[in-house]
């Protein structure tokens, strides 16, 4: 980093040397480097979310409807639905997750590149919904993958989906390179898969990726 004498005069003592040779410790607290980078990265990330179309049941119709001209998801920069997990950073689970689909869903989630988010759309994906007692229904996709935003409804209207996506944008904008220890764990220590937790990934603001190693 080229720091002229002119610039150095305006920086606090000691910062110039540390900017030239930044140590890992410099990123533990917010400073001029991390906050500026956060701003840029979070702005970019939150306004170009690529959703993975994971329509499993009737809620998928509302998800599709929100993509078309009448509701027009493109207003929020989230219109690029992708059919492959490797090009996506948001999985919209729209519909009933059943026991046969759950391992497939987990696998597709693991194929998505970090940082990644999950929206649980509708009563079924959130809790099992009307099929709570069904013999083949997983009672909530959060039993399989970590969920960031839950959208209630059966089905939620496209407006509700947009509201959920705006909530997700706000969540993305809170990401930071610094302070990995400040990020709240997504689940309590009593979660059954706690032993399998993969540690915080500090380079992306400590988003905790929790996976169950065995289904």
């Amino acid at each position, binding site marked *: 980093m080229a720091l002229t004498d002119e610039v150095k005069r305006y920086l606090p003592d000691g910062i110039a040397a540390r900017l030239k040779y930044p140590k890992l410790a410099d990123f533990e607290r917010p400073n001029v480097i991390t906050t500026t980078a956060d701003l840029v990265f979070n702005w970019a990330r939150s306004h170009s979310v690529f959703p993975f179309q994971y329509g499993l049941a009737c809620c998928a119709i509302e998800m599709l409807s929100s993509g078309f001209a009448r509701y027009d998801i493109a207003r929020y920069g989230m219109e690029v639905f992708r059919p492959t997990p490797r090009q996506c950073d948001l999985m919209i689970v729209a519909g009933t997750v059943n*026991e*046969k689909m*759950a391992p497939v869903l987990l696998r597709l989630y693991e194929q998505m590149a970090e940082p990644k988010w999950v929206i649980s759309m509708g009563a079924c994906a959130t809790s099992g919904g009307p099929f709570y007692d069904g*013999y*083949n229904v*997983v*009672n909530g996709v959060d*039993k*399989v993958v970590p969920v960031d935003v839950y959208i209630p409804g059966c089905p939620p209207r496209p407006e509700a989906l947009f509201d959920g996506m705006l909530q997700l944008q706000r969540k993305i904008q809170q990401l930071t390179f610094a302070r990995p220890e400040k990020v709240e764990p997504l689940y309590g220590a009593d979660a*059954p898969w706690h032993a399998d937790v993969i540690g915080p990934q500090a380079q992306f603001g400590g988003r905790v990726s929790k996976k169950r190693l065995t*289904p």
Partner: protein
Amino acid sequence: MSLQVGNVRIDADELAARLGRAFAGELMDVAVQEPDTVVARLAREKVKDVARRLHDLDETPIDSLTLISSVDYVTHLECVYHLYSYAANLYVELHVELPRGRPVVATVSDVWPSADWHEREAWDMMGIVFEGHPDPRRILLKDDWIGHPLRKDYVDDVRNHPYV
């Protein structure tokens, strides 16, 4: 055989009479249930033979199988073959009673190929075994599912639900 629908102009009563004559002693209680549906009962040992002959019937071959449904009557299970004749534009329902303890019946997937997946579904949901089926796997539930969930006495096994 012609695939033109309804080119043999007979009604269900006439078809029932013909079936009663051609399958005397095999099809029992042949009756007309609805204006276009003939219903009959059948012993399970005769399913294979009767299916083949129904399929190759003169003039009105019963050449299409639209559905196999399975019913749990608690005392016994039942397998219902829903058949259709393009030539006569009429439906035939065959009810086959199966004992609960050993619900085995011969496959008809070599007679009507569409029976393949229906028989897999009946095995998956109701536990009816189709002898000679070319691919006897589950079709809707995952392969390691324990039990057959549409049976009245089904008890869910906790091993079916790894995600809790």
